[in-house]
């Protein structure tokens, strides 16, 4: 094509100039005359009754404009939104208002807010609020929370279990019995997928401004979901939707944690409506670690049956999902809706049994964190394959190969119910094994083992799949479409208003490339606008690796529509038939006679100026497209991790990390690579160092970045990347999505490498030196 910035070229990101110079505007950079600051008083207990709250001293503190508790919000602000309330949640269990009422149920539970002229004064006054708490026994262990006699978060329900899924086991029992009768094996393992903190480097934040004269509320929020926030917040504060505008400025990372309507957004909106001044709240890191949603936190009982050759005959999983204290937007459905459908992984598993308990504990609510359910399900499948290989003494690569769904089986309906679009798993495995020089690694490992030189080498594989591009219609309470409004201006500039809203993914660049390719114009003639609900058409948000697959398809379709109209206009200008007109190198011409041409800009001018436009054609070049997926996409790949454990210290080091990912068509390979790097780092983080820790009394022990470990540059290796390309058939671009793949693929690869190094069936994450040293020295 020869167009700078066309699809498939690794052009530099268009967002970067403002970000590398400090000129980007994040929510804390917004200043409004007369703006007030909000500070939140939070529970110091994991579980306590609130006997009384005395706010008098805080109210009288100089500079304080207001202090609010739950009593002040009653009737004025609704409850925190829940997308799909399951079981007892539909009856009110885990439903909560923005400020705690009667009881606090986790460390950090918001109790009161102070609104003051200055952020320091707001905190001073917050310290003057007196709360009389009656501490209650806390429950932080999800399995103990299910036992009779456990402290109850919601006494009126008589249990902490919100919902259970217990289908009959007859079918899977038969499969397991038959497998054993045929000389096969059944392996059982309990696995813990520990609680993680998303930790975007920009914490959450909100500025809310109400103008009483025209009853309009504008909310700037660090959010992944501007339109959902606008729609839900409007309902919660009792304003018509058209009087609420949400603007999402630059967002400093989200990873799923900004995919909620949070109490602070609701209270800031309430406060500005009361006070008539803008109100700003910026979360500090300790608040972020305590109250922004956590991820994972699942205990799984896994049983896998296989023939003696290693062909899996059945998988049985009982998942226990730790919801924490309250239900947020997707808290209750993460495991069941996003994890369970991919339980079979990349494997043709004929029988599966999935049961579940979802349970409240005195911890922060869990919700979507990078991968959301899929990392947990993939961890189970990938560990199960290794358990089978270990039990049978077979090479885990070969057991994977034996069980892969074959290319001619797509579209493939798995026993877990999901319909996989396209896939070709073996080439990705082969490529990864070749890059890692797998056979050599194995012989080197055997040599080092026999040497006994103090180092334990382990090699771990993970041949993951994931599910992206949500949709489809009917699977969620609202249609999960994305949208694009596109205008070709008189100058030939293309303005794109997208309903998708990025937080670091480089959407301005990727979407530009889709438009530049379709119009064969330079990238700098395209502008991508996002995040303002007043100017962008309704979108559903950026999560689930869906922005390019769904939002990109909307942009592409809009460009196609305008291109057709421009061809029609050009055909009149060229006195030819529209079907004979082609667009190449920024020029419309008649097929076969390229010398007779009109430029993209000339057609744009003709359409917009209208005077010379053919009378049968409507002036202007603008269209809005809503694109709703008919099916999901299933990216895949194989990761290989090589670890070395020092027997003396227990320290595990990742020596090599190879990843071959297939996300379908790549719009910008540089951005794809960046997403994979970051994804792997987060998955490795879970495996190696991360974990939210609560004391038995519900105290949060990981409340600063001193205590919550995230990987440093020095702790990560250089990732060796390659890809295969298997297009999806469910969208016109052929893209599958790549935001979460690295995270989903990497955690089990590291876990498998660690178990391999130690020669054990299973070790629960994170693989800290202390844990590994103890394992090495107890045996």
């Amino acid at each position, binding site marked *: 094509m020869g167009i700078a910035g066309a699809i498939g070229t690794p052009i530099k990101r268009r967002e970067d100039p403002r970000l590398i110079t400090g000129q980007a505007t994040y929510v804390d950079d917004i200043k409004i005359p007369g703006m007030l600051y909000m500070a939140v008083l939070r529970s110091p207990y994991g579980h306590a009754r609130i006997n009384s709250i005395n706010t008098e001293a805080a109210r009288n503190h100089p500079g304080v404009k207001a202090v609010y508790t739950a009593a002040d919000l009653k009737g004025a602000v609704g409850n925190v939104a829940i997308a799909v309330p399951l079981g007892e949640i539909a009856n009110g269990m885990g439903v909560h208002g923005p400020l705690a009422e009667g009881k606090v149920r986790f460390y950090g539970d918001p109790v009161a807010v102070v609104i003051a002229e200055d952020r320091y004064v707001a905190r001073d006054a917050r310290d003057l609020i007196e709360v009389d708490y009656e501490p209650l026994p806390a429950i932080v262990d999800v399995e103990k929370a299910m036992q009779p006699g456990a402290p109850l978060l919601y006494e009126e329900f008589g249990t902490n279990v919100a919902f259970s899924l217990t289908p009959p086991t007859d079918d899977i029992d038969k499969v397991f019995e038959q497998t054993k009768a045929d000389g096969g094996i059944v392996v059982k393992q309990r696995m813990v997928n520990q609680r993680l903190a998303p930790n975007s480097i920009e914490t959450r934040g909100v500025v809310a401004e109400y103008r009483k004269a025209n009853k309009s509320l504008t909310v700037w929020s660090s959010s992944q979901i501007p339109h959902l926030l606008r729609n839900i917040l409007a309902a919660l504060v009792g304003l018509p939707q058209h009087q609420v505008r949400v603007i999402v400025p630059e967002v400093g990372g989200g990873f799923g944690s900004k995919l909620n309507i949070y109490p602070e957004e609701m209270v800031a909106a309430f406060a500005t409506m009361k006070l008539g001044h803008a109100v700003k709240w910026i979360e500090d*890191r300790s608040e972020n670690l305590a109250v922004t949603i956590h991820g994972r936190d699942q205990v799984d009982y896994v049983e896998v049956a296989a023939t003696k050759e290693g062909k899996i005959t059945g998988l049985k999983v009982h998942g226990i999902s730790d919801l924490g204290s309250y239900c947020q937007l997707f808290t209750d459905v993460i495991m069941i809706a996003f994890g369970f459908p991919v339980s079979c992984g990349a494997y043709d598993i004929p029988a599966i049994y999935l049961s579940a308990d979802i349970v409240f504990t005195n911890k922060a609510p869990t919700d979507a964190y990078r991968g959301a359910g899929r990392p947990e399900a993939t961890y189970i499948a990938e560990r199960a394959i290794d358990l089978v290989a270990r039990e049978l003494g077979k090479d885990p690569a070969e057991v994977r190969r034996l069980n892969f769904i074959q290319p001619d089986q797509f579209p493939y309906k798995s026993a877990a119910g999901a319909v996989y679009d396209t896939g070709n798993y073996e080439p990705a495995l082969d490529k990864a094994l070749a890059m890692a020089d797998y056979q050599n690694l194995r012989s080197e490992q055997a040599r080092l083992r026999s040497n006994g030189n103090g180092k334990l080498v382990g090699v771990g594989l993970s041949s993951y799949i994931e599910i992206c591009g949500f949709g489809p219609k009917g699977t969620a309470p609202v249609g999960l479409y994305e949208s694009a409004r596109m205008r070709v201006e008189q100058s030939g500039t293309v303005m794109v208003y997208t309903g998708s809203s990025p937080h670091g993914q480089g959407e301005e660049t990727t979407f530009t490339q889709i438009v530049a390719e379709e119009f064969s114009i330079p990238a700098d003639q395209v502008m991508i606008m996002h995040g303002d609900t007043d100017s962008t058409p309704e979108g559903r948000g950026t999560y689930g690796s869906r922005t390019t697959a769904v939002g990109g398809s909307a942009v592409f379709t809009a460009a196609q529509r305008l291109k057709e109209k421009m061809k029609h206009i050009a055909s009149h200008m060229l006195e030819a038939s529209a079907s004979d007109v082609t667009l190449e190198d920024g020029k419309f011409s008649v097929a076969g006679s390229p010398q007779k041409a009109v430029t993209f800009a000339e057609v744009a001018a003709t359409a917009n100026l209208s005077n010379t436009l053919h009378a049968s054609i409507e002036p202007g070049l603008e269209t809005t497209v809503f694109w709703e997926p008919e099916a999901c996409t299933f990216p895949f790949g194989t990761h290989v991790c090589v670890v070395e454990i020092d027997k003396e210290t227990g320290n595990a080091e990742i020596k090599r990390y190879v990843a071959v990912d297939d996300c379908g068509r790549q719009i910008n390979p540089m951005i794809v690579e960046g997403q994979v790097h970051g994804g792997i780092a987060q998955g490795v983080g879970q495996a190696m160092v991360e974990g939210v820790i609560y004391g038995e009394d519900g105290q949060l022990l990981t409340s600063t970045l001193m205590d919550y470990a995230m990987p440093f540059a*020095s702790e990560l290796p250089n990732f060796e990347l390659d890809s295969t390309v298997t297009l999806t058939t469910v969208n016109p671009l052929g893209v599958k999505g790549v935001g979460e793949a690295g995270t989903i693929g990497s955690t089990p690869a590291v876990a498998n490498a660690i178990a391999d190094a130690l020669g054990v069936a299973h070790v629960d994450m994170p693989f800290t030196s202390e844990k590994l040293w103890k394992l090495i020295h107890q045996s």
Partner: protein
Amino acid sequence: MFPLPACNEGRIPHDETNGGNNLTMKREITVTVNGQQHHSNVEPRMLLVHYLRDELDLTGTHIGCDTSQCGACTVLLNGDSVKACTVLAVQADGCEVTTIEGLAPEEGSLHPIQTAFWEKHGLQCGFCTPGMIMASYQLLKNNPNPTEAEIRKGLEGNICRCTGYQNIVRAVQYSAEQMRTGAEAPVGAGE
């Protein structure tokens, strides 16, 4: 922790009123930021990062953790990198501060480290980036020819949640190359 500035004796002015603990009694300070001198009245408890962001409207310096782990607030104080969330504005009295807004040699241009982060895709959400660039500046000032391991070690005070660091390392390597070949001399205050 960080090199205390040598300017104005580098200590918090003592306050005799209210038992010496009046943290809200404003003090006059003079700070040169990105070459421009500012006279301001600030509370002794005001953090340098809030002074830069809220008083001087230099919002390129970010706050990520409040406890000096993440490094998003890294600026240069008399030419050395400090975490501005754990420096008081009054400690910068008489000092020269360089923020991300003042790193480029001239208005509208880019410092080689900025260019390298762009070229090598060393950022995604961009929130850690100003601090990461300022920390890289310090790293390259101390060691103009670092190995990959030295870069990874040298950036331990700055956390990035998006990139997995690989392209940040590439960016620092690339900027080291560019700066060694003398494309552009680094600038900084107090040198």
